């Protein structure tokens, strides 16, 4: 075995440890799974390595969100009742035993929890969770990147907390609209906060920025200049009240006191 490596055609046995930590690529994963399918010694070793790895994960201290249980059970009840899923049907695929989890791919659509009899929560709360699940995809993931990649811990904590508060709010309403010129915008509006996000926005010429506004009956207040991240923006508007709308305009760099162009999108609860 050469120390000077770069080629991947190595003995898959050497990858058992990395496999147990999910630290291999797909090709290597399949190589290991072929190995353990018919090599008992390798399978034994992998079994202990995976048991050790699992200890690393399960010893992390974290309180599961209370809503998760209801959401999971509702999703399972929905799957069971529509009859399309059956564990037995999965058995038909030829799956190497140690590879237990590789092929199954989660299909996000089916995971959206439906209101279901198993719920211990009022219907409104169920709907909240569906909403949260839908929005978190767009909203929480960029936060997670910020958290993981840049260690802006305090900023992220504030953002996360604010995001969590919006999503928990029983008054939350989802609004959705096309952005003139390209892109789509989604907002969660509550009685005192609003979370705005948009994707697919065209990039602006130099000297121009997107700016978000909270529009009440006859006034617009800036909710900040939006920093576009690959055509995506996200902003929490704290000074939002029931009946207000969110509007996004294009403004000169640095933003404006009041909107100077026609909004590209306006989102409101009604």
């Amino acid at each position, binding site marked *: 075995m050469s120390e000077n490596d770069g080629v991947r055609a190595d003995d898959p046995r050497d990858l058992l440890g990395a496999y147990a*930590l999910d630290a291999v690529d797909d090709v290597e994963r399949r190589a290991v799974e072929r190995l353990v399918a018919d090599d008992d010694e390798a399978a034994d070793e992998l079994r202990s390595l995976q*048991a050790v790895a699992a200890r690393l*994960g399960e010893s*992390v201290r974290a309180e599961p*969100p209370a809503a998760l249980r209801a959401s999971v059970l509702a999703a399972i009840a929905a799957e069971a009742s529509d009859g399309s899923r059956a564990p037995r049907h999965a058995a038909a695929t030829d799956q190497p035993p140690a590879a*237990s989890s590789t092929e199954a791919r989660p299909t996000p659509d089916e995971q959206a929890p439906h209101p279901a009899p198993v719920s211990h929560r009022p219907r409104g709360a169920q709907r909240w969770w569906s909403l949260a699940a839908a929005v978190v995809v767009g909203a929480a993931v960029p936060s997670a990147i910020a958290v993981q*990649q840049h260690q802006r811990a305090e900023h992220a904590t504030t953002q996360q907390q604010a995001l969590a508060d919006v999503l928990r709010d029983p008054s939350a309403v989802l609004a959705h609209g096309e952005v003139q010129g390209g892109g789509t915008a989604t907002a969660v509006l509550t009685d005192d906060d609003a979370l705005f996000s948009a994707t697919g926005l065209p990039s602006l010429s130099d000297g121009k920025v997107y700016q978000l506004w909270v529009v009440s009956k006859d006034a617009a207040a800036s909710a900040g200049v939006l920093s576009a991240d690959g055509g995506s923006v996200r902003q929490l508007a704290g000074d939002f009240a029931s009946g207000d709308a969110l509007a996004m305009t294009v403004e000169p760099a640095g933003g404006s006191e009041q909107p100077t162009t026609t909004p590209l999108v306006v989102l409101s609860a009604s």
Partner: protein
Amino acid sequence: MLLLLAPTGARRTSRGRGVRPYGTLARVVQASESMSDAPELLAAVAAGDQDAFARLYDQLERPVFGTCVGVLRDPDHAAEVAQEVWVEVWRTADRFDATRGSARTWVVTLAHRRAVDRVRSVQAQRDRDQRVLDESGERPFDVVADEVENMLEQVRVRDCLQTLTETQHRAVVLAYYGGKTYREVADTLGAALPTVKSRIRDGLLRLKDCLGVAA
């Protein structure tokens, strides 16, 4: 980082459905594989038994969520992946093979894999979108280690990690909690690939002895 977890969790349980009794005792019981009826529950789940699923969920909720948080750090993100994991457990329970390991390990392994998948797809997307940030995108070992090892509630696991050699320790932590492939670990550590492969394996075997893990 830790600030992010504790208050959020505490807030959540104080609202919503009410707090379920997860005390120290429950944790001790959960940690004991031999007392678990998880294998039987998984078999029942494979047959479509929703009550068995709920019992399995209650037994393994914390290991699954903890694993997701360990890799993803962000609790909301972890909850989303945990939900996917549980749906997958429901769909694929019949693939569990008791001769290949414990039910608990099977479920936790699945959770880790999905969490890592998520980290990698998010990173891939980020790399496509925003190469500019790449220079600040590295997560040095110390950051990962500090974040994660402070979250470990089992002192024993933390202590055992300390018994590894430095390279073993770094390689295991970066791969498991950092979601890195061993190739990325090798890059980060400036070590040769065969070295990293063997350090990971040796590190895990040493952890196994230290923790007294029965396969």
